């Protein structure tokens, strides 16, 4: 399994619209972990641009997983920020299983946001590993 790269771009305005929708609370619960919400919280509330960066990270991660991460809960892909400010990925559940099956052992992530847009790049290193399960086609939407 070679190195795989995923990228995604999300408009903060789209996240803001989701927060203001009738299902805004459920949107937060279905997509983000408690830790992510804490990292995005400001005095004015949750920051849509930071949430957008995390959503982009989740989508970028789905793109490097086998089958486009189909069947993976977005909460199974968590962006964690350490004390130095660096961000890391923590996979759980089916996301972790798909990564393991594909021999993807190491993930690196970079986030950026500017001008109302947030982007994420995820690199997964599968060199030296033998995938247990071959990749297939159907991608995830979430």
């Amino acid at each position, binding site marked *: 399994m070679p190195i795989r790269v995923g990228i*995604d771009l*999300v*408009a903060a305005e*789209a*996240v803001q*619209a*989701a927060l203001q*929708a*009738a*299902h805004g609370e*459920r*949107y937060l619960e*279905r*997509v983000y972990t408690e830790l992510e919400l804490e990292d995005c919280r400001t005095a004015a509330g949750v920051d849509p641009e930071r949430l957008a960066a995390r*959503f982009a990270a989740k*989508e970028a991660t789905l793109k490097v997983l086998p089958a*486009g991460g*189909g*069947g*993976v*809960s*977005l909460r199974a892909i968590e962006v964690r920020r350490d004390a130095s400010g660096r961000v890391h990925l923590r996979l759980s*559940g*089916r996301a972790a299983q798909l990564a393991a099956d594909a021999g993807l052992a190491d993930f690196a992530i970079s986030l950026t946001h500017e001008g109302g847009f947030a982007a994420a790049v995820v690199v997964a290193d599968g060199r030296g590993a033998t995938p247990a399960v071959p990749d297939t086609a*159907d*991608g*995830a*939407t*979430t």
Partner: protein
Amino acid sequence: MNDQIRQVLSDHARLPVDVQTLDDDADLYEAGMTSHASVNVMIALEDALDLEFPDAMLKRSVFASVAAIAEAVTALRTAAIR
């Protein structure tokens, strides 16, 4: 049911075209629906149709068209009856 699905798409898919101009089989992603919008469509559908999409259905293909969404909703309702 397709009318309810189209209403949710109109409200939450953020398509650059009028959803009423799209066929049931038209690809919503090709029409401009983003992954983020598809998540909002999923949650709004759950509210509108009183159901919940399980993780196994969180696939791009499930939300790719009005027809695909209707098929998934029918499958969920059928499973709930059994």
